[in-house]
Each structure stands twice: as structure tokens, then as C-alpha cells.
């Protein structure tokens, strides 16, 4: 829609599950175009619930979500799901087609793209994550790190407005973790990254928000939040042993 609207705008979002458990109590969050933001918070803070609201999988609560100016509502769902690319935590859930190529093609093909245009889209997305050579392989023959990269490609193929990553570094060995970071840094796309991996958040995201007990408890430069010991303790966030966020020089983003 209009180019000056932020990639993501969440306002006053509250949600309770049908069993009565209330997960979100009025979340306000704005992510500008091209920003990389880390969404931090303890288990059970409502992070997944928030993510599932971004593309309208969960709805029916109070408040609004809009993506690049387009409200998440039933009539816009197809377009919203093209604009919001969610990479789920387990790549085996994300990669459900028999070959990598077909999986990456799934999103654009569901939107009606065919033929040479589709092939180009698939190739570009796979090249962005360095997996073009694996196009005809079945996903379960890839290593975990490769599968995660293909999972990123499956949503990049839809040219999303915002990339939402759920625990992108989980279960990755250090080399795969760094390779994924290089890929994410090279992409020209807005990123919202849900993670418990605080060093990874510091490395990749200049800005972080803390979601705790269903509200945004803090929002600021990642380094500042991680250095605030009182804040961190209050929200059950802990740095890995020996890691001092003060000692790291964060490059200008």
C-alpha cells in the first residue's frame, strides 16, 4: 500500500484462548521498514501467540494488526500471508513437499504464479540462502542447518514485507548458526526474530523488545536491554555463562 507505513503495526492486541487462558494483554509494537527487531521473553510470555496473530492464523481478540498499512482481516488474508513470511521452529513442519524446489515454489504457486516466472522466483530464493544446488533433493536428506536455510527460502520466495523467524538458531551447530546469521544480514527485508539466544539477538538485531506476561515490557536498543541486569532478571532472561554484552562492539545497522 503506501510506502511510508511501517512494515508492522500492532496496537492494543489482546487475546485469550478458547479455554480461557489469556495470552496477550494489549500489545503495542511498531516495526519500521528494513528494521531487524528481536522479540525476547521467557517461555509462556505469549511470543508464539503474537506471531500467529501477525498473519491472521489467530484472530478474534481485541486490537489491530496491520502489515505495510494493510489490516489483518479475513478479506485480506491471502495478501497478508504473502506479506508476512513466518519461518517456524521445526523445519520438518515447514518443509512438507517432496522436493526442495517444490517446497520453495509452494507459496508463490498458491498465489497463482506459474511457469518461468515461478522457476526464477524459486531459483532466486534458493540462491539467497546458498541452497540452489539442492533444489531437487528431498528435504529429509538435508542436514538440519540446510533444512533451516531452505525453510527461510520458502518464505523469501513470496517476497515478504516482513520475515518472522521463530527461534532461528535453535538446534544449529555454531557454523550453521553463523551461516544463517550471514544470510539474514545479507537480506534486504524487515525481520522480527523470536529468540532465547540473546547473543544472536545482539549480533543481528539493533533493536529488541521484551514480551512478558502478555505485554511489551521493554523496547530499546538490544545492547542497552541486555546490559540492564534488573530488567533482565525481572523477565527471566539470562545471558549465557561468560557472555558480557558490554564487551561486544555492535556494528551500526
Amino acid at each position, binding site marked *: 500500500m503506501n510506502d511510508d507505513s511501517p512494515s508492522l503495526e500492532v496496537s492494543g492486541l489482546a487475546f485469550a484462548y478458547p479455554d480461557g487462558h489469556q495470552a496477550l494483554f494489549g500489545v503495542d509494537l511498531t516495526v519500521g521498514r528494513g528494521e531487524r527487531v528481536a522479540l525476547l521473553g521467557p517461555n509462556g510470555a505469549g511470543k508464539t501467540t503474537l506471531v*500467529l496473530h501477525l*498473519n491472521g*492464523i489467530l484472530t478474534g481478540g481485541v486490537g489491530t494488526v496491520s502489515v505495510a498499512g494493510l489490516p489483518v482481516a479475513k478479506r485480506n488474508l*491471502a495478501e497478508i*500471508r*504473502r506479506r*508476512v513470511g*513466518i519461518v*517456524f521452529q*521445526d523445519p*520438518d*513442519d*515447514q518443509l*512438507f*513437499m*517432496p*522436493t526442495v524446489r*517444490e517446497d520453495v*515454489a*509452494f*507459496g508463490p*504457486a*498458491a*498465489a*497463482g504464479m*506459474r511457469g518461468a516466472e*515461478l522457476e526464477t522466483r524459486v531459483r532466486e530464493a534458493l540462491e539467497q540462502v546458498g541452497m540452489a544446488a539442492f*533444489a*531437487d*533433493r*528431498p*528435504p*529429509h536428506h538435508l542436514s538440519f542447518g540446510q533444512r533451516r536455510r531452505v525453510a527461510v527460502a*520458502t*518464505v523469501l520466495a*513470496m517476497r515478504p514485507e516482513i520475515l518472522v523467524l521463530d527461534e532461528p538458531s535453535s538446534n544449529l551447530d555454531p557454523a550453521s548458526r553463523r551461516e544463517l546469521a550471514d544470510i539474514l544480514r545479507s537480506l534486504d527485508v524487515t525481520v522480527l526474530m523470536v529468540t532465547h539466544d540473546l547473543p544472536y539477538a545482539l549480533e543481528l538485531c539493533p533493536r529488541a523488545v521484551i514480551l512478558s506476561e502478555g505485554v511489551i515490557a521493554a523496547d530499546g536498543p538490544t545492547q542497552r536491554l541486555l546490559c540492564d541486569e534488573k530488567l533482565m532478571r525481572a523477565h527471566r532472561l539470562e545471558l549465557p555463562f561468560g557472555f558480557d554484552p558490554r564487551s561486544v562492539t555492535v556494528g551500526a545497522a
Partner: protein
Amino acid sequence: MGAGHAHKLFRHGHSPVHALPAHCKLAATFAFVLVVVSTPRGAVWAFGLYAVLIATVAAAARIPAGFLLRRLVIEVPFVLFAFLMPFVAEGERVGFLGMSLSVPGLWGAWNVLAKGTLGVAASVLLASTTELRALLLGLQRLRLPPLLVQIASFMIRYGDVITDELRRMSIARRSRGFEARGVRHWGVLAKTAGALFIRSYERGERVYLAMVSRGYAGSMPVIDDVAATRAQWAYAAALPVTALAVCLMGWTL
């Protein structure tokens, strides 16, 4: 389609039979089997001709006879059943090597054996010249209900994932000192099966979420649309049409 899903039934090759679109081969195999089963069992020579037809196709597909015969072993349980028929069926009896055999039973056994073997041979040829993935696309193209095709393709994709899960559960059981030794342990195995079912069910839900997030709205997008030319259809029809001629002769002669 690349080396992707090289199933053990499939035999890689570049014969004209391999090159035919899967839906042509499926239709031809199905028609051939229909013709074979509708041939009168008394026309013994007709079944001989069918066998020659199958051998011709196998030669065109460059499938060695040994390979085809080994695959036919799957038929054995049915053959055993056929061998029982002359002993248990009613009616006129003949003596053979001191055994009393029923004549209608012998004809019944011949009927099952001949038609079964030809049907299995045709299916083996289809499976060894067509990749699993292509077969599914062929079924889709032949307008099999899309839900059935989707279920089958998810079975292929997740078969390994679920087997792997089962293997991990078995390792976890054995690591805690459990060995299945007889009936008393069946309860534990049953609980494993139940747990596996629940895990798979939950995975199904997560996969569905991932699909919906990428624009799935009830039907799989067509990514590879293979159209068959008239010549390809004609080539594939050669087998069932010749068989039909044999069958008609079987009824009239």
C-alpha cells in the same frame, strides 16, 4: 524432478517407457489390467499373448527379466491361496499324483494365478519406470480426488520423519532397560504406538499451520504441469489396445 525420491521400486533409466508422462502410463496400466481380468479363463493362449506383451514392454523399458521376476515375489501370498483352491473347491474331481483335485478349483486357481501375475507384472513395470513423485502427479492429473493425492504425498514426505521418531522412542525405551520380550510387554508397545499417533497428529497440526501461512486454501497449487501429446497417448495406448484385441478374440474364438 531430479534424483529426488529414488524409491527402491524405481529403476533409473532413459527408455521411451520412462519418458512417457506418468498419467499416460497409469491409464494404460489400468486399462490393461481391466482387459486382462475380463478375458475368459478358458482362453489359455490369450494369457500367453498377454505375457508376451508384458515382456515386450519390459524390453522397451530395458527392465531385465530377473529384476521383473524378483519383484513378482510380492505375489506369493496370493499364489498360495490359489494353490489351495483345487483342494478345497467343490465339484467334479480328477486324480493327480494320488491327490484328488477339483476341476473347477483348478480352473479357479489358474484364473487367479494368471490374471494376478499379469496384473502384478504390469504394476511392477509401471513402478519401475515411473518415479513415486511423478506417479502422484499423474494421479492428480487423472482427476483422482486431490485430498487422496495430498494424503499420499504427505505419507511419502513424512514416512521417514515418523519412522525416525519411532526409532528414537525405541532407543529411549531401551536406554532405560526395556526389551520387548513377549506378551507382557505389549502394553508398553501399545503405549508407544499411542504416543507416536499423538506426536504425528500434533505434527500434522503444525504442518497445516505452516501451509496456511504460505497461502494454502484447500488445494495444492500445480507446480509441475506435465501435458501429454497425442503421440505419447497413442504410444501408451499400444499396450491396452493390443490386449483388448486379444481379449475380444478370446471371447469370440
